[in-house]
């Protein structure tokens, strides 16, 4: 992975519930800390665009999909477990992942 990899992240939520807001906040904070401008983040409300959830076969919300860089990864939950999110986004060094 190079430093210049651009991240495309999609966050699916169902309405603006406290849980949704928490996920958005957690993701934004993480991105700012770790990705410093190298990311594009889209928030999709399934209640407004249900067909998009159908297309992506999403069951749980919030669901974060890392579209780019490959591999595609899905993280569900309000993203409060930072370490797991970092693992999912391939932002943790391999040695740390093994611990």
């Amino acid at each position, binding site marked *: 992975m190079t430093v210049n990899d651009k991240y495309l992240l999609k966050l699916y939520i169902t309405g603006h519930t406290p849980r949704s807001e928490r996920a958005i906040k957690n993701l934004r904070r993480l991105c700012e800390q770790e990705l410093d401008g190298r990311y594009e983040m889209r928030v999709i409300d399934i209640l407004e665009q249900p067909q998009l959830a*159908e297309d992506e076969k999403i069951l749980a919300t919030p*669901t974060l999909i890392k579209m780019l860089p490959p*591999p*595609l990864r899905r993280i*569900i939950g309000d993203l409060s*477990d930072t370490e*797991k999110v970092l693992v999912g986004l391939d932002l943790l060094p391999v040695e740390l992942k093994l611990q």
Partner: protein
Amino acid sequence: MSNENSKIPVEKLGTGIEGFDLISQGGLPKGRTTLITGTAGSAKTVFAAQFLAEGIRKSNEPGVFVTFEEHPSEIRKNLLSMNWHIQEWEEQNLWRFVDASPQPGHETIESGEFDLGALLARIEYAVRSIGAQRISIDSLGAVFTLFNNATLVRAELRRLSAALKGMGITALMTAERTQEFGEIARFGVEEFVADNVIILRNVLEAEKRRRTIEILKFRGTTHQKGEYPFTVLPDQGIIIIPLSAIELKQRSSDMRVPSGSPEMDRMCGGGFFRDSLILVSGATGCGKTLMTAEFIHGGAKKGEKCLLFAYEESREQLLRNANGWGIDFEALERNNQLRMVCAYPESAGLEDHLIAIKREIDSFKPDRVAVDSVSAMERVGTNRGFREFMISLASFVKHREIPGMFTATTATLMGGPSVTESHFSSITDTIILLRYVEMLGEMRRGVTVLKMRGSMHEKDIREFTIDHQGMHIGKPFRNIVGILTGKPEYLNMESMDRISGMFQD
């Protein structure tokens, strides 16, 4: 949660699944959720899909299929063999999939709290977009395997159940069970969709698979109790055989029809009744097939159509034998007065045979039916399965108000009861016994009318012979006793006089 009017009784939605609406007395409770459970291979998915398919085919009601296990493309392919063209229905907005099946490469990491709001939103969206009135969810157990947190899944499924109720849609959810008898379903799912429960069973009994369906409960409404056998036909799906739900409401007729033998007509007091069941019982080779041939011939002479189910002989054998008795089956076939269905009993299960028989009767519309022999079917199923087969067959023929002749082979050469008789005798109207009679080192044949409901009949045991013109019934055996028990004994004139004297006033 519920906004149902408590003064209105629970309505039912006819499913269109053959036999189910009869045992459920109208179908599934409308606007409610029904849980259908069964072990692996118990046809839950077929039932769930058929619920939608029949809704589309019979009443143009759109349906949504939520799948957690198989991919929609698999379901489309598997059900094409039933002649359900799901893809076409999807194009016509009559069928919609909500695909929640495991996606390859979708490795999911859990981080913090989540819910299944997306799934709920997708289901609601699918239901709204086609105006669905039916929904099938297959299966609940698979949802638990998708997520680590069972408590959360349970809470979310309860929310789903409530949402479905709010939509007023009639829902069917499937769930697995690990044993045929025991807990209703895995993960205790029945606790939150517990209003209505149906169990499908697939029990191995004496080396035969036996499928049954049982409605365990329907809250606030009635249904038939107990297990009913069913079968899954490759081109039709599930067909339930509603045995005891069949009502005994056939009319009875005084009209007589010829038996095919003038002597037999005399013995029966003028022929068989038009809507009666005749059981012909006898050992192998003593003339049962001949009696059915005479029965068919007698009908054909009156211009009637006959349907013959042969489970012991092939078409060629039948033709040859009938020719030997001076009856030309081939000519009758050409005139469309006879249809012969020859099948090997082991070629299918009892339920499948029964459905094949019903189909033939429905399509050929015969004026009389003969089955030679029903006892050949004993080999195919269990004792219980055979009993259900016989009852179902008998009631089906009776409902058509046509005479039916069934033959049964006795186990021993000289008579004695057979399983067929004990299962069947109470629902038959007429029983004719054919027996071998050993007389002075010679085998003769005897015939008697054991019972005939609603009519006088001869009580004699008469001798009969067979030649190239068929069956000839002669004089009664006068000086022999014990023919029926299979131990014939001579009486000399002296003891005959003494015995007849005993009953004189």
